């Protein structure tokens, strides 16, 4: 059974079995598992919406663009669960994360120090003014 992150395949246009079979055979693996204990995988070539991720024998269409180096869930992850990369925790999930879903600052927070983003900075300056 497909994970809840997968949109209705009817919404996926420009999708062809031939094209994806070709891509699977002719491109290096798109996802890298850095450690056997990891629950996230690293995207090693930027993926566009509707391309297919291959995870645990399942094909999961990409929802939003996944730039090179970004992470996706290797399995469903619950709120508060540790995110494991390089075999060590890199923070905790702040939302339910489905298999294949993008894992980033919107659903993962540091257990040490808050992550500072440019959007936060501009809001800070607006408030000051």
């Amino acid at each position, binding site marked *: 059974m497909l994970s809840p992150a997968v949109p209705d395949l009817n919404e996926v246009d420009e999708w062809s079995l031939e094209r994806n079979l070709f891509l699977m055979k002719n491109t*290096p693996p798109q996802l*890298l598992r*850095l450690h056997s204990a990891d629950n996230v995988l*690293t*995207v*090693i*070539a*930027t993926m566009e919406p509707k391309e297919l991720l291959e995870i645990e024998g399942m094909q999961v269409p990409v929802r939003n663009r996944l*730039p*090179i*180096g*970004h*992470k996706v869930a290797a399995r469903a992850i619950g709120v508060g669960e540790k*995110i494991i*990369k*390089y075999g*060590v*925790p*890199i*923070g905790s999930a702040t939302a339910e994360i489905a298999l294949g879903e993008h*894992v*980033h*600052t919107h659903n*993962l*927070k*540091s*257990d*040490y*120090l*808050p*992550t*500072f*983003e*440019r959007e936060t*900075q501009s809001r800070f300056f607006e408030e000051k003014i």
Partner: protein
Amino acid sequence: MKGYLRSDGRKGIRNVVAVVYLVECAHHVAREIVLPFREQQVHLIGFSGCYPNAYAYRMLQRLCTHPNVGATLLVSLGCEGFNRSALLDEIRATGRPADLLVIQQEGGTRRSIDQGRRWIESAKEQMERTPIVDFFVSDLVVGTVCGGSDATSGITANPAVGLAFDRFVAEGAAAIFEESGELIGCEQVMAGRAARAALAPELLRCVDKAARYYTALGHGSFAPGNAEGGLSTQEEKSMGAYCKSGNSPISGILKPGDVPPQGGLYLLDVVPDGEVRWGFPNINDVQEIGELIACGCHVTLFTTGRGSVVGSAISPVIKICANPETYRRLSEDMDVNAGRILEGGATLEEVGAEIFEKVVRVASGEPSASEALGHQECAVVYKSFEPVGPGCLPV
């Protein structure tokens, strides 16, 4: 390889004239002095502050007596707090040509510039007599720093530098990694690599100090570009950065300006000691590179995913690009394309060996990409440090 022998026994891979402004008010005059010589190994360095600071003094003292430096001209406005005569005496004691220009005494901007340029001409003649001797890999001090990191940094360029670091350490060189704020989350793993029992608690203390310092500042050593590049948390960035240290045992902890007493792998502690009072410990990558050079680094291995273009005065910066998409955009600024690991173009081991060979070629005189493009950045700030504790250095 050949090197320039200095009176303290260290050997340089470059023979640079350093022109040093001792306060921001002398910066323009110093820059003008350097201008006609900018492609002749005459580099501009300096410190902006008017008020004295022991760390800033030590940084300039170490930079001016770095083995890559053959002569030094100090440029003072005249009223700043920097102890210029003590610095001049220390440099002269090493046998290097050194002199001091005081703009207020010299008669202003133009006279100081003319005087400074004449001095450089004569210093360059004297520097031609520097003894040239054999230079071995075991003479090298190599630093590493990452800047403009993204999530590819920790899977290509950083582990490849780690492999090169292992080889440098195995061949007797000193290798220095730094940025204790970017080791937050890795402290236990790192302490397990201490070469001596007494060093392990010091490594933990070092990261604990960084965590406290950054917590007081409100956020970690994490730029918005890091998140755009796929890094989500400080711990994730730390794990990626930590790979640069390779797998050798850690021989000791240094603070800015401490020269490694022997070969081996060292952690450079860059977070000030004492209460939080000097602002951000690493205001930018250039300042971090400067601290590595003050520890005697002949070259700095700079890994980048987002794509930094920086270089440095005094010691060459070798840039290793982690991200193949970035490499295609910024290839003229890069020395090594580690991103091809992700595209099946090379293995981690091949890129590690390429980095090692590149260092040997740059140490033999080949300009790095940033050197060839004329990069000579330098930034020295206010900080304060206690000396390293017992147990931090090999005996």
